[in-house]
Every structure is written in structure tokens, then in C-alpha cells.
């Protein structure tokens, strides 16, 4: 006689993740038979909205795709348009765009490390609980987040829906008094950033080595942000215009977000992938701090993502200081002329590679648009990681422990599942057919 056992668990809310999603997990005889991460993203709708829009309308509209990383969307669209219109911006504009992007990395990473991820590794259910024992660390996270938002506002006029960027540069040069104030705060934050790296490296992180392919931009001399070729740890080295020849987006029946694969396999984008592929592009001082902290990159432990984020916070602060100390700009933008063509660019959003493609008519209006955000690209990798990680963790663990570990794995990617509500419902189904 066969005993048939089935257990279902419903987790009504997953906090500390941006967006709405659901995880379906079926376990049979101690093996995962089905694992589906269902998430819902809106960028597909935006692509249609962009049709018929002028280039500068596009820049303001794409900022509204994501409230957490509007700069990434704006910068990718700007670079795509400028590539199509053959616009060469001044070194000052290029430098200021890098600072703009530093602000976004800083605020996004500070939020994720301190408020979303750290409670997992310190044994707290929430940041509120954590704040009772780690008030100074939480305050540090909030200060760094605000500093990042203020860097965005320096160029974007505001950190929510920034409106300062345009094709050819910015609508205005930043105010000198604000720059002075920000420089002072950035210099004060530099030591905190070093402490943060050591703090994240001291956390008890799971040792979960996995075989995955990292993908990111690579620039000839800089740590990648706004420019570069697309490379992978498996030897890919292509121009951003060749993206579609190697990466495939497809609709998985269980998700409204597209999945993406590289040569038919999942891949990782984001801070860990960036550092894995660009450690030699980090400043020597930062490499030394990371070596002192005892973390070796490239790393195949996904949980080292939190350390990678801390390192990029240090980098963002360091770069912003150096670039803001440079010669002030006189012209906020350069002139440009629209023309028909295909506009393609990729930049490094806080969560990883962001790729845009626009077909433009002779007046620069969008005929069609395609946007591939990082969370879509990571979705197949998250599912692969969940399967491997839960099996390593032990499927015989109780359901609560499995759920918590699964949530921790998902949060580790900092998925930006931008949507109106933010719930993840997880159903675990255990199906045992053991003979008795």
C-alpha cells in the first residue's frame, strides 16, 4: 500500500523585496520536481507607450519604469539616442553622468544591504528588530541611502522621477554650494564605506558555491557603468549591438516577466557578476580592502553579493569625490540633430545589465522599443539558484526553514519586481509515495 502525503504552505507576504511575485515549490520523494518563481513586471507596457515619442520625452518617460533605478533607465536611453545621432558629449558631461549613476548605486545598495538583506544574516525577522541591536549600522544605511538620493537630485532636480537628464547632457549645471556640501558629506562617508565592507565580510554567510556564468559590461579602463562591451565568464565578448544574437528572451508560461538565457543557459547579472568580471578595474585601494577582508573575487558564492554591493558603495563614493572635485562645467549639454536609425545601448543598473534598443524615424520619434531589465535576465538564474540552494540546505528541513531560506536566496538578488503591490506567496507541496 502506498502512503500519499501532501503538505501545502502559504506564505501570505514576503517583505523586503520590491514587487509582486509568487513561488511554487513541489517536492516529491525528497527531490524538487517543480520550482517556479512567478513575477510581474511592467516594462513591456512602457515599450508600447514609447512609440511615437520624441527622444527627450523618452528620457523622462523611462525614468518612470522604476522608482528605485530611474537613472539607469534614463542613462541607457540617453546613450542609445546619442549613439544613433552620433552625438559626442564633453568630458565634463560624461563625468557628471557617472556621478549621477554613482548616486543610484549608492542609494540602492545601501537600502538593500542594511534594510533588506542584513536581517537575514543576523537572524532577525525585520530591520526593526535588527535596529534594537544594530542601531548604528541601520543609521549608517539610512545616511548612505540619503546621500545617494541627494547625488541623484544634484543632476535630476529630485531623486524620485529625476528630470534633469536629456539627450546631449543635462538641462542645467549643478549648483556649486550644493556640490561643496555633498563633497563634505561624501568625504565623511568614505570611512563608513570601508567599515561597511569589513562588516559585510564579517557576516555569517552561507557557503553555497554554484556553477554560474557572470555577465556584465567591461570598459577598457574603468569599472563599468555607462559604457563598455558585454562580456561573460564563459568567454563572450561582444558589442552591445550584438546582444540579440547571443541572448534570448522568452515567455515562461508561469510569469508575466520574460526570462532570458545566454546561449540557452541562465546567467547572472548584477554587482557580483560585475566584480567577478571587473575586479582589476577597481581602484587599488579598494582591491586591498577586499583582500584584507578575506574575500576572493571572482566568487561563485551568490551570498557574496552583499559584499560586492558594499564594495560598489565604496567605489561610488570614491568616484563621486574625485569627479566632483574636477573642473566645473560651463555648458550643460551639447547640440544634436535627430536622424533615423537603430539606437542601442547597455549600462549597468544597480541590479545589473540593462539593455535598450529603439528604432527611430527621421525626426527621432520612436517606431518601436525594446527594453531588457536586469531582473528579467536574472529570473532563470534565481530559479536555478533556488533549486540548488534548497537542495544543499536540505529538503528534509521543516517548511518554515525552507521558506525562510528560499526568501533569503531570492532577496539576495535584490529583485526589483516593480509593481503596485509587493507580495510573494509561496506554496510548498510535498508529495511522498513511499511504500509502507
Amino acid at each position, binding site marked *: 500500500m502506498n502512503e500519499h502525503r501532501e503538505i501545502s504552505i502559504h506564505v501570505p507576504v514576503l*517583505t523586503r523585496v*520590491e514587487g509582486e511575485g509568487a513561488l511554487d515549490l513541489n517536492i516529491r520523494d525528497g527531490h524538487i520536481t517543480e520550482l517556479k518563481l512567478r513575477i510581474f513586471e511592467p516594462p513591456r507596457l512602457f515599450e508600447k507607450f514609447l512609440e511615437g515619442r520624441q527622444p527627450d520625452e523618452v528620457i523622462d518617460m523611462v525614468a518612470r519604469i522604476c522608482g528605485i533605478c530611474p537613472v539607469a533607465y534614463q542613462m541607457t536611453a540617453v546613450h542609445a539616442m546619442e549613439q544613433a545621432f552620433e552625438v559626442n558629449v564633453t568630458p565634463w558631461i560624461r563625468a557628471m553622468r557617472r556621478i549621477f549613476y554613482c548616486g543610484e548605486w549608492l542609494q540602492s545598495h545601501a537600502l538593500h544591504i542594511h534594510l533588506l538583506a542584513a536581517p537575514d544574516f543576523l537572524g532577525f525577522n*525585520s530591520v526593526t528588530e535588527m*535596529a534594537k541591536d544594530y*542601531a548604528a549600522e541601520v543609521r549608517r544605511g539610512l545616511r548612505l541611502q540619503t546621500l545617494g538620493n541627494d547625488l541623484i537630485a544634484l543632476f535630476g532636480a529630485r531623486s*524620485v522621477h529625476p528630470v534633469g537628464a536629456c539627450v546631449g547632457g543635462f538641462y542645467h549645471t549643478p549648483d556649486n554650494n550644493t556640490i561643496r556640501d555633498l563633497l563634505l558629506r561624501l568625504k565623511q562617508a568614505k570611512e563608513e564605506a570601508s567599515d561597511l565592507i569589513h562588516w559585510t565580510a564579517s557576516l555569517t554567510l552561507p557557503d553555497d558555491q554554484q556553477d554560474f556564468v557572470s555577465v556584465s559590461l567591461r570598459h577598457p579602463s574603468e569599472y563599468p557603468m555607462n559604457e563598455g562591451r558585454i562580456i561573460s565568464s564563459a568567454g563572450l565578448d561582444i558589442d552591445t549591438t550584438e546582444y540579440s544574437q547571443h541572448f534570448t528572451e522568452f515567455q515562461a508560461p508561469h510569469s508575466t516577466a520574460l526570462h532570458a538565457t545566454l546561449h540557452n543557459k541562465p546567467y547572472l547579472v548584477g554587482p557580483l557578476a560585475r566584480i567577478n568580471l571587473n575586479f582589476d578595474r577597481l581602484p587599488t585601494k579598494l582591491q586591498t580592502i577586499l583582500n584584507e577582508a578575506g574575500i576572493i573575487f571572482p566568487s561563485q558564492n551568490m551570498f557574496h553579493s552583499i559584499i560586492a554591493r558594499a564594495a560598489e558603495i565604496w567605489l561610488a563614493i570614491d568616484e563621486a569625490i574625485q569627479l566632483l572635485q574636477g573642473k566645473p562645467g560651463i555648458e550643460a549639454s551639447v547640440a544634436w540633430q535627430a536622424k533615423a536609425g537603430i539606437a542601442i545601448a547597455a549600462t549597468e543598473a544597480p541590479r545589473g545589465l540593462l539593455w535598450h534598443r529603439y528604432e527611430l524615424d527621421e525626426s527621432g520619434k520612436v517606431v518601436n522599443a525594446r527594453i531588457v531589465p536586469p531582473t528579467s535576465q536574472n529570473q532563470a538564474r534565481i530559479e536555478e539558484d533556488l533549486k540548488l540552494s534548497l537542495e544543499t540546505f536540505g529538503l528534509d528541513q521543516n517548511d518554515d526553514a525552507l521558506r525562510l531560506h528560499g526568501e533569503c536566496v531570492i532577496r539576495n538578488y535584490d529583485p526589483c519586481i516593480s509593481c*503596485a503591490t509587493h507580495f510573494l506567496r509561496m506554496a510548498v507541496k510535498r508529495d511522498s509515495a513511499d511504500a509502507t
Partner: protein
Amino acid sequence: MQHEQHRLRVIGIGSNHGVDQLGWLACEMLQKKMKAYPIDWQLCRTPAQLPELFCNCDTAVLIDALISNKPIGQVLTLSKDDLLSLSSPWSSHGISVVEALKLTEALGQLPANYIILGIATSISEMEIENIVLTALPQLEQSLMKSISNSP
């Protein structure tokens, strides 16, 4: 910005999507309407920003969308206890508003006075601007009261 001392700060919280935009839109409309008043207006993407936004002000007013069975556009004044008593999280932005308030309290950063104004809506409403226009008189009235009660 690193927030300067203000007597009254009004914070619109939300996201880019659906009715979640109500907090931002209400804040933007009120700012245009109440230019003459000494109010510091702020938009907030995630409640994680609230502990910093609550610093350096005597009174903070938080405006957010409230999924409710109340008439669309009705403004409800809620206490932290009201929020805690709701059966499902009142707001969802990575960490919830309730959690952000608790965090602010744990860090000792709650202002002397704070008010939470929820604009009643349902999840599927499409006429976002009309909802805000309906709510605007009540919101303005609440802010005027806060101004007159300010120390």
C-alpha cells in the same frame, strides 16, 4: 537633500504604478495649491526613506494610497495603532509603512507630531487624478489644521 529643520514636512509616498501613485500625485497637487505656506514637500519612493525624512521637523504628514472599502477619494486619518490593526499590510514598498514607523521609533527619530493620511481607493482604479481631486479638499483641510497647531 540632508533635511533642514522645518516645522511642517509633507511626504507623499508611492511608486510609479497604478493607485500607488496617489501619494505622489496628491503631494504634487497640494504643493501647487499651497505655495504660500511654509511647508517642506517631499516625495518618497520607499518607506525605507521615512526615518531620514522624519528627521528635523516638528510635524510630519505622510500621504499614501489606502486600499479600503471606504468611498473612493475619502481621506482617512490613521494612527500607528490603526495601521497595526489592519488585516493586511496597508502599504507595500519593500518594507511597509508600519515597519518604517516602527523602525523610526526604534531609532528615536519620530517627530513630535506625525499624521498619516490615507486616500481610500480600490486596487483596480484607473482614474488616479480624479481620486486625488476628490481627496484634495480634505487633504488641504488637514494640512491647514496641522499648520495652525504647529508650535
